[in-house]
């Protein structure tokens, strides 16, 4: 649906040339929600803007639906842009127009007849949950409501693709959640492919299928959200994962362990998919006569599959612990945690 092929972007300013995006290649499949995450200045916005050519790549190619956007005439490009909705961090609504008029603009631009505009806008506002705000002006709305208008506007011309540049970054956590739910519905109900840019791992965890991590203009890691969360490789990726998964022991727990002078073995166990439903711990506890103590952990959902991360202390005979760990290792990912080493 969207293919980036060795996309690079340089900006030439008074202080010389700056490379904002370096040799990025990946593909977004139809119907997926694809996330790009990175810190501020990583080049994410520059990258997403190459899709509808708000920014021209300096080299490399971007294909949308198999078409190389750079080869289009100005008129063809405008036609293609109508098939690509875009949602912005700061909403970018027309302050001088009502909610209704904001959502109607794209329809008016494509000369939709008046009698078709009315029901279409109503339907869109209903969909985003703003059916009663039609005659309000943007400055009478909350941030979340403004973003809903932005989304309704982006959907007006029934696009196949929705680009979201930090669609939730200006919103509080609760509102973020409700906008993410809305984007998920957009994806499910209209089968719209979504490319979303963010610096919040929560966004990736909650709605994305695939993710690319960017740093200093480069892709450093890429894959399914599940793989990335369960086995992050790059340090930046691990930091992002930690931000929402907290697979590190909190300081208070470490202090407690030190205080009690325990030298028992701590293990990190990852539960993925179906395995998360199995009573593995109590099984090994019975089989190998061990006690276990869950020190820390979290179970969440990734791509509609359960995913858990537990840090467990085993108490018992060394030999038995060894065997128990092996037993668990056959089915789950388990690794020993050294509390003295912190990364």
């Amino acid at each position, binding site marked *: 649906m969207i293919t980036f092929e060795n996309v690079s972007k340089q900006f030439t300013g008074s202080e010389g040339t700056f490379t904002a995006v370096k040799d990025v290649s990946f593909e977004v499949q139809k119907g997926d929600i694809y996330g790009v995450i990175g810190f501020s200045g990583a080049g994410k916005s520059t990258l997403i803007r190459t899709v509808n050519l708000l920014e021209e790549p300096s080299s490399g190619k971007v294909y949308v639906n198999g078409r190389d956007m750079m080869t289009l005439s100005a008129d063809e490009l405008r036609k293609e842009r109508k098939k690509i909705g875009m949602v912005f961090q700061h909403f970018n609504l027309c302050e*001088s127009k009502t909610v209704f008029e904001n959502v109607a603009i794209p329809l008016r631009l494509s000369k939709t007849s008046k009698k078709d505009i009315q029901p279409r806008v109503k339907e869109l506002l209903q969909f985003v949950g703003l059916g009663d705000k039609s005659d309000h002006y943007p400055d009478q709305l909350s941030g979340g409501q403004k973003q809903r208008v932005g989304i309704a506007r982006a959907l007006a*011309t029934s696009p196949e693709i929705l*680009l979201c540049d930090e669609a939730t970054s200006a919103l509080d956590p609760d509102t973020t959640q409700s906008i993410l739910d809305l984007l998920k519905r957009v994806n499910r109900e209209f089968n719209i492919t979504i490319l979303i840019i963010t610096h919040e791992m929560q966004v990736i965890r909650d709605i994305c299928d695939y993710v690319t991590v960017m740093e200093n203009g480069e892709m450093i890691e890429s894959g399914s959200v599940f793989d990335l969360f369960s086995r992050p490789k790059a340090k930046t990726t691990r930091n992002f994962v930690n931000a929402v998964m907290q697979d590190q022991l909190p300081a208070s727990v470490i202090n407690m362990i030190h205080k009690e002078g325990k030298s028992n073995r701590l293990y990190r166990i990852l539960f993925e998919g179906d395995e998360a439903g199995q009573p593995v711990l109590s099984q090994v506890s019975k089989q190998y006569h061990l006690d276990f103590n869950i020190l820390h952990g979290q179970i969440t959902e990734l791509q509609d599959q359960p995913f858990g991360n537990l840090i467990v202390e085993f108490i018992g005979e060394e030999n038995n612990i060894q065997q128990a760990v092996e037993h668990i290792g056959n089915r789950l990912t388990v690794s020993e945690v050294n509390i003295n080493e912190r990364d």
Partner: protein
Amino acid sequence: MREIDWSVFWVDVWEATLETLVMTGFSLIFASLLGIPLGIALVVTREGNLFENKIVFQVLNVVVNIVRSVPFIVLMVAIIPFTRLIVGTSIGTTAAMVPLVIFAAPFIARLVESSLLEVDPGVVEAAKSMGATPWQIIFRFLVPEALSSLVLNLTIATIGLVGASAMAGAVGGGGLGDLAISYGYQRFHSDVMLVTVILLIVLVQLVQMSGNRLSKALRRR
């Protein structure tokens, strides 16, 4: 020094006020017809804008600056031949309107430019992402978004024109300025001067008040 015949005087004041209104009003219309497109051009030919064009921008920019740097009273005298060419005479209310328009148009262009530059670039970006043409971006996004600020700025231009039109009166252009000079200054009737000054103050107040109201009404609802 003769006593003033007040009954005649009030008729003169009424006529002078009308002349000022006509001069200011028509000058405003013609100056806007020139200045608004000029201001839009100054914005869209800028670097990185819709119709980026260095040469056009520089030419417009310099021309506007040159005209803006000539004081009105000098401009009025300097373009007398041009004024004659256009309206056939260089005295009277109609003749005064030529320098007034030339004086106000570049001023309005600058005000329009600043209003349009205030519009959030994000709105233009959103417009582009919707596949809007450059003309649609100007007339359906930029101008409507700037409208309230445009009205406030045109109010400033109108008040500038009221002042300039009074100056035009000094060289026989008619209007309240003419009245003040011929009665008050040349014939030493300072009470006449006072009346015209008060009238000018009231006029400016009215213009500013209506401008504020209209701008506020346009900002929302």
